[in-house]
């Protein structure tokens, strides 16, 4: 009898927790953060052997592909040397034009680089835990990059760890644009490896291979961060393959573009 009662009570508590989490109360958030802080050191230690094994496998792969890689790199080098010349010219031209315009450069964003220590792997949630938190100056809402590619956004920050919502998660959305046409759309995660493009104006030309980057609308992400390429464009469903691959996330960069602050300072300036 007492057993049954305990069971029923705990089932009720589980449902209550789900409802509470859905309402996103302060308490649920606090519990998560405290726990993240507690397990961060354990996960950090546990992720080391996995990282070492992955590195060993990568080395083996590289050894096998050495010759083919060499040829490919030589060709790439030729192509890039050409681009370097072009880039130098453009840089020169850019500097000249800026000096003509009295251009004021924006502030350099501050950033923190952190190791990925936890990955929720499963098909239900796409988020990772990184080994940096409040004490490293990370704030909720900051943009997370891998190299120069968009990875996601910081959703929870504890003292020594933070949770990053990946752009493939079903709860992720970002304003983006097609680099070819400048057409705006919303990138929406769907818990698969290929998020969808939504709200693209009808009739916009879009083809596999087109590059997608953030548009900067809404002030959450700065404009121009590379997101991915269109992988399939069928009627009603346009899919994007992100540049940042989840299994390759080892170190990520958390960047503070000062964007959440822009809006509030703008408002206070109006008063």
């Amino acid at each position, binding site marked *: 009898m007492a*057993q049954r009662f*305990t*069971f029923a009570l*705990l*089932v009720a*508590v*589980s*449902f*209550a*927790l*789900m409802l*509470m*989490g*859905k309402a996103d109360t302060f308490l*649920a958030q606090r*519990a*998560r953060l405290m*726990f*993240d802080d507690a*397990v961060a050191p*354990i*996960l950090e230690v*546990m*992720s080391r052997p*996995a*990282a070492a094994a*992955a590195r060993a*496998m990568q080395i083996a792969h590289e050894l096998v592909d050495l010759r083919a890689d060499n040829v490919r790199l030589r060709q790439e080098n030729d192509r890039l040397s050409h681009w370097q010349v072009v880039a130098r010219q453009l840089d020169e031209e850019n500097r000249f034009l800026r000096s003509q315009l009295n251009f004021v450069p924006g502030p350099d964003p501050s950033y923190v680089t952190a190791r*990925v*220590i*936890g*990955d*929720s*792997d*499963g*098909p*239900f*949630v796409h*988020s*990772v*835990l990184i080994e940096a938190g409040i004490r490293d100056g990370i704030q909720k809402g900051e943009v997370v990059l891998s190299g120069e590619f968009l990875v996601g956004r910081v959703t929870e920050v504890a003292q020594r760890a933070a*949770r990053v919502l990946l752009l493939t998660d*079903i*709860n992720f959305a970002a304003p983006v644009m097609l680099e070819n046409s400048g057409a705006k759309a919303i990138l929406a995660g*769907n*818990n*698969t*490896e290929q998020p969808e493009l939504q709200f693209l104006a009808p009739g916009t030309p879009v083809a596999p291979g087109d590059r997608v980057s953030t548009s900067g609308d809404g002030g959450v992400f700065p404009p121009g961060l590379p997101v991915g390429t269109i992988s399939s464009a069928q009627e009603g469903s346009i899919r994007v393959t992100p540049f940042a*691959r*989840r*299994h*390759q*996330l*080892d170190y990520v960069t958390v960047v503070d573009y000062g964007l959440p602050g822009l809006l509030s300072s703008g408002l206070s300036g109006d008063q």
Partner: protein
Amino acid sequence: MNGPLLQRFDRGVRRLLPFCLCLVLSLVAATPTRLPDFDMIMPALPLIGLFYWSIFRPDLIGWLPAFALGLANDLISGTPLGVSSLLFLLVRGVTVSRRRFFLSRPFRIAWWGFSVAAVCASLAQWALLSVMFRQTMGIRAVGVEALMTILLYPPLSWLFARSQRSMLINA
């Protein structure tokens, strides 16, 4: 003089073993694998532990520990709080009620029982989260996850059986 006290302490620590093993499995599931095709799939490792111990030593993982394991799993993996707790409670409930059946049968029957439990748990989790996120999620990854979990049952249950024999024989 200290004998009985030490013995009791030793026994108490040993009795925590199933719970700790399940907790460690939750943590293992959360460590990044960095393998190209495994970033979307993670077998529900703690479920294996929960099923095994619910058959062989249900006294060591009661309702409250099962609930706590679920809560820890939700906190570690980032799923909404309460989802794993509910699933773990249900899995324990069903398994304990059928444990006599499994105990008297060969291993493959328990494996088959676990397969049913794992598929049901995955589907229930999928349905719960689809309702909570107000969107239906792809079912394919859920199937693959359940399959991986089922395939990992034999090696893990072998490990549990060894630890049971060496640590819990008279605890």
